[in-house]
C-alpha cells in the first residue's frame, strides 16, 4: 500500500462530482471545514493553484474563483508572488444562540411532520431552500451597489418533486 503525499501545503482537496454543488464552492467549503476542525489556522498557506489543478484536474479559473470567494468572506488573503494565506477566522455562534436555533428548528420539524411531510420530503425541502438561500446570499454579497438584491425567485406552491 502506498501513501501518497499530495503537496507541501496543509490541505488536500477532493471533489464530489455528484453533489450538485459547484466545484468552487466545494473547495470553499472544504477550507472552511478545515478551519473549523483545526487543520488550518491563521497564517497557513493554501495550496497553490497549480498544485490543486494538477491533483484534481480542474480548470484553474475554478480555483481562482474559490480563493477569491474565501477572500470575500474574509477568510484568506492573496499575496502577489507568494500565494494565498489564511487570515481571519470563522464566526463562532454562541451557545445561547445555538440553543435558540435548535429549538426553532425542532418546532419547524413538528410543524412539517403534522403537515404530512415524511423524512425524505423534509430533507428535500430543506436542501432546496438552503441552496436557494446560499445562492441569493452570494448574489447579495456580489452586488456592486451594496444594496440587497431582490434575487429571490418567487416560491412555488407546487408539490416538491
Amino acid at each position, binding site marked *: 500500500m502506498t501513501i501518497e503525499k499530495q503537496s507541501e501545503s496543509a490541505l488536500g482537496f477532493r471533489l464530489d462530482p455528484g453533489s450538485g454543488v459547484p466545484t468552487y464552492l466545494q473547495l470553499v467549503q472544504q477550507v472552511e471545514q478545515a478551519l473549523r476542525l483545526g487543520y488550518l489556522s491563521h497564517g497557513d498557506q493554501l495550496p497553490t493553484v497549480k498544485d490543486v*489543478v*494538477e491533483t484534481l*484536474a480542474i480548470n484553474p479559473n475554478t480555483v481562482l474563483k474559490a480563493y477569491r470567494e474565501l477572500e470575500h468572506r474574509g477568510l484568506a488573503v492573496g499575496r502577489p508572488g507568494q500565494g494565498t494565506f489564511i487570515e481571519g477566522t470563522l464566526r463562532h455562534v454562541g451557545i445561547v444562540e445555538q440553543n435558540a436555533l435548535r429549538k426553532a428548528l425542532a418546532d419547524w420539524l413538528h410543524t412539517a411532520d403534522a403537515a404530512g411531510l415524511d423524512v425524505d420530503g423534509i430533507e428535500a425541502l430543506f436542501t432546496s431552500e438552503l441552496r436557494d438561500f446560499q445562492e441569493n446570499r452570494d448574489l447579495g454579497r456580489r452586488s456592486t451597489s451594496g444594496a440587497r438584491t431582490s434575487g429571490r425567485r*418567487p416560491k412555488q406552491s407546487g408539490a*416538491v418533486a
Partner: protein
Amino acid sequence: MNVLESHGLGKRYRRAWALRDCNLAVPAGHVVALVGPNGAGKTTLLHLAVGLTRASAGDICVLDGLAPGSTAALDAIGFVAQDAPLYKNLPVADMLHLARNLNPGWDDQRASGRVADLGLPPRKKVGALSGGQQAQLALTIALAKRPRVLILDEPLARLDPLARHEFMSSLMGAVAEDGLSVLFSSHVVSELERVADYLIVLNSGQLQVSGEVDDLLATHKMLIGPREQATEATAAFSPVRINQAGAQAQVLCRPADRPVPAGFSVHAVSLEEVVLAYLREPSAAALPGPAMVLR
C-alpha cells in the same frame, strides 16, 4: 483578445458540407470544450483553425487576426491531432530533437524537464510507448514551443481512465503555469464540467451553442410541471427540449428573470444535461447575438 474568430465559416468535401455557417468569437484565457457527436465537424473546425485545411466559405482567423497556417500562427499554436500522431520509429530523444528543429521558439529545458518528470526513456521508440505516454509526449512537444493557445483534437479518446486523469492534470497544470488558452474537442461530455469554462456545441456541421459555461448554467433551468400545460407555459422561455414522463414534463429552457408559471418548479441543470438536450434537438441554438460578438 479572441483566440478564434470566424464568420460564415464553411467547409465542403465534394458535395457534403462538413461545416456550415459557423460564427465564432472565442475569448482567450479560457479552456474551451468543443463537443458534438462523431462526424459533427469538430475535426474540420480544428483543422481549419490550424491551417491544415482551407475554408470553402467564410473566413477564419486566430489570435486576433493571424491567418491559420501562416508562420506566426504556426508558432503561436500548439496542435495535437487526433490519436497524437508522432513518428513511431524514432526514439523519444530523436523525436524531441526533430520537433526542436522544426520549431524556432523551442524551450528545450521545459521539454526535457517534462519528459524526465513523465519518466519516458529517451532511447525507447515512440511506437513502443503506451497510448497515455504517447499522448503525454505529444502534449510535451506542443507545450515546449511556448504557444499562446493549445488546440487538441480528442486528446482523451484512446486513453484509459488513469491516463486520462494524468493528461488532464498535466494540461491544467500547464494552463495554471502559463496562462494558456486551450481548445479541445471531445465526444465525451460527462467530465467536461470540471475542466471547461467555455463551451461550443457542433451538430451535423452546424453551430448550436457557443458561450461561457457559467452563463449557460446560470441561464438554463429545468422547469418541471404538469404535462398538459408545459408547452404553452414555457413558450416564452426559449425552450430547448421538453421531456414528457407520465403526468409530468421536464422543460429545459431559459426563463431569464421572468416569473415561473404556477405549478412549475425550477431546478438547476448540469452541463451534461444542457449539452445532451441540445444534441437531441438539432434545431435549438444558444448563440450570442450580433451585439455580443467580441472584436
